[in-house]
């Protein structure tokens, strides 16, 4: 909230137009007033445009001590750097500064937290094996958190196929990759994940479906 708004809020509090004091924090009435104020444009002030997604540079990546992952969400409108926070067997949980996390297993997303429709868990071992084998079929299980706070499970039939080679750029560096596509479907949902593997077989870029509401995440490993 800008200083102007703070001033207005304080004034409104004194005038009794909105609520203040510790007991009123999070008060719906006050919250509604605040929300309404946010929608009212101040005279002579343009509504603030959504900041453009920030650009990741090689220097930023190099500055970080360990592994780094660049995550792009919502069709590229949002981008964040993530670093590993915990490793549980072969499952790595990456976190961003604004407190979202993604857990990967050998580069494939098995969980997210802090997104509007989180993937609570996934079993992806067959997909990973098919990728290593240069293609094949796999069964995936996705668990998401429902609107009613229950686990909702989708079992998907997937087929993984090679889509040739491609030289891609990851944070200013060219990388020669083999590209794979994984087509998954069941009676409710279908999606296609894409993976770019470097010479060592590591997934250096991927575009992976998380949930219908969240869509795809693009993960780069600079």
């Amino acid at each position, binding site marked *: 909230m800008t200083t102007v708004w703070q001033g207005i809020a304080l004034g409104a509090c004194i005038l009794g137009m909105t609520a203040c004091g510790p007991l009123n*924090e*999070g008060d719906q009435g*006050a919250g509604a007033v605040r929300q309404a104020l946010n929608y009212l444009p101040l005279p002579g002030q343009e509504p603030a445009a959504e900041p453009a997604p*920030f650009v990741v540079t090689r220097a930023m990546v190099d500055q970080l001590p360990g592994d780094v992952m660049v995550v792009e969400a919502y069709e590229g409108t949002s981008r964040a750097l993530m670093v590993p926070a915990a490793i549980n067997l072969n499952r790595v949980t990456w976190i961003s*500064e604004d407190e979202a*996390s993604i857990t990967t297993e050998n580069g494939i997303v098995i969980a997210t937290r802090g997104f*509007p429709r989180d993937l609570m868990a996934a079993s992806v071992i067959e997909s990973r094996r098919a990728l290593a084998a240069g293609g094949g079929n796999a069964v995936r299980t996705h668990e998401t958190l429902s*609107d009613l706070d229950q686990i909702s499970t989708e079992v998907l039939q997937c087929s993984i196929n090679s889509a040739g080679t491609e030289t891609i750029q990851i944070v200013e560096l060219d990388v020669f990759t083999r590209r794979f596509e994984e087509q998954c479907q069941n009676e409710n949902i279908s999606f296609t994940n894409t993976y770019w593997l470097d010479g060592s077989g590591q997934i250096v870029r991927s575009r992976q479906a998380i949930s219908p509401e969240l869509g795809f995440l693009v993960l780069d490993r600079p």
Partner: protein
Amino acid sequence: MTAWHDSPATDFQDFQLRPLLLEAHKAGTKVTQMTLKYARTTSYAALLTVLAAPLSAEGPTYTSFGTTGLLEMPTAESADSGELAITSSYSDTAGYRTTLTFQLNDRISGSFRYGVFDIYGSLRADGTRGIATTYDRSFDIQYRLTNEGRYLPAVAVGLRDFLGTGRYSSEYIVGTKSIGSNLKVTAGLGWGRMGERNGVSNPLGGSFETRDEPDVFDEDAGVNTGGQLSVEQWFRGDIAPFGGIEYTATPNLTFKAEYSSIAYEPGQARPAVQVSSPLNFGVSYRPKPGVELGASYMYGNELGLRATFTINPNERPTFSGLDRAPAPIKTRTEAQRAAQSWNRGAQPAIREALAGLLEIEGIDLIGLDMTDRTARVRFENNRYRSETQAIGRVARMMTQVMPDAIETFVLEPQRNGLPMSAVSLPRTDFEDLENTVGSTAAIFDEIAIAPAGPDAPLDLAPVPSPKFEWGIGPYLDFVLFTPGEPISPDFGLAFDAEYQATRKLSFVGRTSISALGARDPLVDFRDSNDYVNVRTDQTYFGLDGGLQLDRLYVSYADRLAPEVYGRLTAGYLEKMYGGVSGEVLYAPVDRRWALGAELNYSKLRDQDMGFGFALYETRRNGDRVEVGDYDVVTGHLSGYYDIGEGYHAQLDVGRYLAGDYGATFSLDREFDNGWRVGGFLTLTDMPFSQFGEGSFDKGIRLTIPADYFIGSPTRRTVSTGLRSLTRDGGARLRVPGRLYNSLRDGQFNDLEDTSGRFWR
């Protein structure tokens, strides 16, 4: 504070670094905090706007009576299960109607309606009738018998206005069939008001041929005793056909035409609607999901307008919520898991570190007790609606700081100073199951629930901080559905203060001053029954325009035995009463039920809402005269039962404020995401004729969790109750802080309701 995503973020590195710092501190080394330069991702609020792309509107449209159907007449369609619809409609002679309809499950819907419209008076000597405005409440219910098949229509049976004064009282059976994807055809048969136009004798014959509508105006008692179930008139009397079509031009635009069997024949207390044609025509436009606007040409002579707003608790606009990611679990190696003991001297440091970590989650650490292999943590969660989620978060934080030898986490959620239960969690399973498919069911198989352990030897932190809190804010109050006035608003400024001496003992006060100043009573209403006006006098309260004392009380709650809790509250408990209230609740942690008992002594406060107590009476000239005091002992035995499948029942038996004895039955439809939609009714030994209009106390109630809308976790809810009419029979003291609704959160089946949030 509520965690808005645009508030300064708690540094995510905290939970990583604190244990690091702790260990480093122990080892005597200095750790420099690494700084990471990231840009924040786009705010989630903005993302949601992007995500909430308009879906095409679907589901049945609504009538001017606020039920699914055509214009006035019903169809056999059901809204999506759980849908709540508020409809306001108006036309010149049919007046205003506002209706709340709830689709209880796939087949049953119920409606509560409030109407302001004209009715006919008694027949004059010259053959004409006078016309007067009435305020009318009515209830509907519809049950869909069959689904639509390939050839057969969906069929539903329903009752309109079956529990009110019967102005619209009708029963119907109706079928609706889709023809192609754009056309729906409806035909039905109606009884009562719906059986008037071209009605024929009831083919069932015999006693079904006559509809003996009781005269709801009891001349002897001089009161209207509508509001009773009029079972003996259902599906009796003449029967008439009705029907109509609905054409969907675009997903957002539909056209409707109907032949109505409601003739609005003149008669005493019948709606004075001018009708010159049985045909009604209308258009319904849904500009976005949840909004339906209707316009119609009604009765061959007037324009009708309608707006319907729908919301479905099953569809959360914030999806799974916008909680920040939890701390990942810090795992142990096999060797670490084998440790059998730890350095006990570190416990104070562990406690301090854990308290810091839980603070990030908005959770207060209350107590910690550690043995060689077990750590018992008592905490009070101030942020998460789901206690299950809070348990998951506390356990994650425990992995960060607990010595390797600790294999069992015992988590004791506490609310308002009362420990609710003890959940034991095996740490190895917790580590192994993280982020694996099936982990939710698996962890619920592993955890064990027991009554919360003893306070000793928990190293308790009894004093909350801050102890004193205050607030100043505007208030908006409505007195709804008093006999003479549908709604009377009041607004002004309120001052709140709360002092928590300990977590179990608190002093609460609220005063307010109305912006409306001194004012006259809204209605000149005199209740002529033999009972004290224990609630009907509410419209005389707080009219002086000065500072009024809304409440000022001291509250003490404690655990009396492992699963038995007690509460004592004394002072100015509510707007109309002061007194002392005691309650005992037995809530076994592994059962679906609880039992409670409450005993209150209360005294009617002075209507000036100061410190005094007084009973007033209204004289014939309208003056209010103090005539003494009124005090009463009330009390109830209460049974609470979680039926399952989202239904919850409550039965209270005891004595009410007017000295009447009876019982209140409540049934709520509860959604696992915190929504509750319910109804209640109270029957007491106060005769219907003494109760007055409505015959007995009944109403609906609604609780909406705030996180449903805002997405970020919060324990706040918005609750509202609507009585069809506030009267003196079956009235209960409004005691703040009744025990069950907060303590049931710790019962195992309630923890299971939000099982999906354990790992979030």
